[in-house]
């Protein structure tokens, strides 16, 4: 990356792989379970979190020297909640269609522990630009996992991807369904998201054994 120094580039790259917020830090699991039943919802959530985390990290970073340490968690919570509500209100007034799609996610964004986690762990101790990069990087790392989980859950659970019937029609018995294939309804339920995340963690730690914690 030409524009970014090596250290800054690491802020984006690390959370994608070796310091992934979901598979390594085990944050943001609840939203990874809740909204990955279809690919589209995963993508919407990933983009929303990227926006809120990037912006929130900058705001917290700018305020880092004046925030009283005793109430810093409350301050962080207020910042993220305010940001999300502002975005929600503006969308409702000027992009109503989009706001309808996002409405479900508003609550989930506020309670996403990755956001609070990055505020606390990074933005409070770093400048705005680096905090912004860290926010984007972590949101990307979160998004990658969400998209992978969403991809498998939608494909195996509903036989569709982004709503398109890629495996054929289960009712008309065309495509794969003609030879007896069935959708696995269990994939649509939250436990399977956890199992898919578990498989990703397994694959990741097999490839890079330094990630395995000492028992």
């Amino acid at each position, binding site marked *: 990356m030409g524009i970014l120094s090596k250290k800054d580039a690491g802020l984006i790259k690390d959370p994608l792989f070796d310091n992934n917020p979901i598979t390594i830090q085990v944050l943001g699991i609840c939203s990874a379970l*809740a*909204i*990955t*039943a*279809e690919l*589209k*919802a995963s993508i*919407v959530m990933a983009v929303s979190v990227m926006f809120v985390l990037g912006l929130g990290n900058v705001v917290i970073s700018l305020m880092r*020297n*004046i*925030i*009283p*340490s*005793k*109430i810093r968690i*409350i*301050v962080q919570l*207020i910042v993220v909640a*305010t940001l999300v*509500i*502002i975005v929600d*209100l*503006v969308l*409702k*007034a*000027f992009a*109503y269609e989009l706001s309808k799609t996002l*409405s*479900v*996610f508003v*609550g989930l964004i506020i309670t996403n522990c990755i956001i609070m986690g990055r505020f606390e762990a990074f933005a409070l101790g770093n400048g705005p630009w680096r905090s912004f990069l860290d926010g984007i990087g972590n949101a990307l790392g979160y998004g990658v996992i969400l998209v992978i989980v969403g991809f498998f*859950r*939608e494909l195996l*659970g*509903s036989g569709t991807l982004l*709503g398109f019937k890629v495996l054929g029609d289960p*009712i008309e018995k065309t495509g794969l369904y003609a030879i007896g294939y069935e*959708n696995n*309804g269990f994939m*649509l*339920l939250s436990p399977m998201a956890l199992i898919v995340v578990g498989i990703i963690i397994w694959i990741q730690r097999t490839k890079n054994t330094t990630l395995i914690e000492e028992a």
Partner: protein
Amino acid sequence: MSKKTDSNSYTMIFAVVMVLIVGSLLAFLASSLKPNIKENERIEKQQNILYAMGVNENDESSATFVDTSVAGEEFSKFITEQLVLEVEGNKITKQQTRTEYMEDNNKQEPYLIDVKKQQANAKAGKVRKLPLFVGEKDGKTFYVAPIRGKGLWDAIWGYVAMNENMIIQGAYFDHKGETPGLGANIKQRYFMDDFIGEHLMTDSGEFKGITVAKGNNDPKNDDKTDYEVDAIAGATITGDGVSAMIKKDLSLYVPYFKNLKK
């Protein structure tokens, strides 16, 4: 090590100032954007009602409303009357036309009647006003009724268009916070379209409603008089909510449809 930001007085002042700033910012935004939001919601109601009676921009699989810019125009073109009913037991006690209702209610259009408020009125023992929108399209008459109920997480609601025999001609469902990919799919075409052609009443005039049923052995939805549509996998409670709101709210309109036949 003691920093200036650690002192109690600083913490207190910071908290107060922060709350004031954030509070006034949000209050200002909310009240200044309110007209826009209200207007968007008003247009959406028109679009929903039109959608249910088949005035929409649907292609093969998407559910698309008429454009916001023409919603008002199309609404006055297709909706010929907006009735407001009051029902007690199985008798209509009061029936107002749009003009009559608007005279009594500060020129408020009947389609803006808040179903949630009316349901609360009914619970409190007061009269519930039931709006019913009569539409004409291609020589056919549609009767569109709003319904509202509870899903898994929050409210769900919809508009159901029927003909004079209470056979469903179209339905639109929406929700506030159902799970994406599961309960949220009640607003998908494949679910809403299943309701088209379903009978709500038996031939002898008994109101049956429609149950969102698991394993109804009719996934293609060929049987239109089984009072059932196929459920969505993983969305049992939302589906039950849909069945419940159809049974509860549409049954209130039965006296009107019985009068039509006389």
